[in-house]
């Protein structure tokens, strides 16, 4: 049995760490790069409780560093894991490599593959694609986003507007150069 976690905010972190300590199941760590460069990193560890404590210590340290998600930048975290775990428990590092696609990219690819059928079903609506399926849909983006948030939290997810027409989207309003002389 494999346990898969996606860390999205610090408050999940203590729960995850506690579960790790109690758990003897394979553990997969997914971290998310900054929103500007979404990417995930997969790490699968098979842990005894003692080894899980080591990992928990590592995660708690990461939590208290200066970062909104995990206490480290994506690069720092991957580097730490790559250096720390193979040294501490080399036989338990099953995989440490960048995942091929983020949830956003996977959702977008799913949409492109199934555009015809999705358009038939959801024309004129926003849809949320999560784990290669349509999680929810609504003509109101605000209503859809609210429900998606309640289901899976604030994550990078693909939520396009479904239409068979080619959308021409414009900012029609020209703006003149903003002058400091006009500043309040």
């Amino acid at each position, binding site marked *: 049995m494999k346990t898969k976690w996606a860390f999205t905010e610090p408050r999940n972190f203590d729960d995850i760490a506690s579960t790790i300590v109690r758990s003897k199941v394979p553990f997969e760590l997914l971290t998310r790069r900054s929103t500007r460069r979404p990417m995930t990193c997969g790490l699968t560890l098979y842990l005894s409780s003692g080894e899980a404590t080591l990992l928990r210590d590592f995660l708690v340290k990461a939590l208290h560093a200066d970062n909104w998600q995990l206490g480290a930048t994506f690069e720092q975290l991957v580097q730490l894991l790559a250096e720390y775990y193979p040294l501490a428990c080399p036989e338990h590092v099953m995989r440490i490599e960048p995942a091929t696609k983020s949830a956003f990219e996977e959702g977008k690819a799913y949409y492109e593959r199934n555009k015809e059928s999705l358009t038939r079903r959801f024309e004129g609506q926003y849809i949320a694609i999560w784990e290669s399926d349509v999680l929810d849909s609504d003509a109101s983006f605000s209503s859809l986003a609210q429900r998606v948030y309640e289901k899976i939290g604030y994550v990078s*997810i693909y939520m396009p507007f479904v239409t068979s027409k080619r959308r021409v989207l414009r900012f029609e309003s020209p703006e003149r150069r903003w002058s400091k002389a006009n500043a309040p």
Partner: protein
Amino acid sequence: MPPDIELSYYSDQLFDPPAPAVMVELRSPDYPNSADPERLVGLLDSGAFISAIPETVIEKLHLHKIDEIEAGDYNAEEEKDFRTVPVYWIHLTVPYLEPIWARVIPKKPKSHATVGRNVINDWLLTLDGPKLKAYLKSITEIT
């Protein structure tokens, strides 16, 4: 809420000629109750198909991308005039109105946000140009 409460106004400090605007509070959806939102003047722009916020705010709030669209400015006509821009989801509040979840794209100018038709079209908006007054109410007001 009575219809004559002025939640919107004409700004002559950021816009010349004066333009209808509203104060917006922007929060990460992770912290919808944050007491310290990003507060910006939002230009009410019916010429904008979507709302836009400074890219510095997108970075500060660590917003997540949810879509990519082809967009052009007022002068766009040919294929080359359009470019792919990311779309983010954000928690947007106009004080006294119901908060909404909105799609926004990044913009470079930091001076103000642009409130486009994806948000405006949920409002009842009245503009009184000669008096430089603007009034808005949502169809889902906080009571």
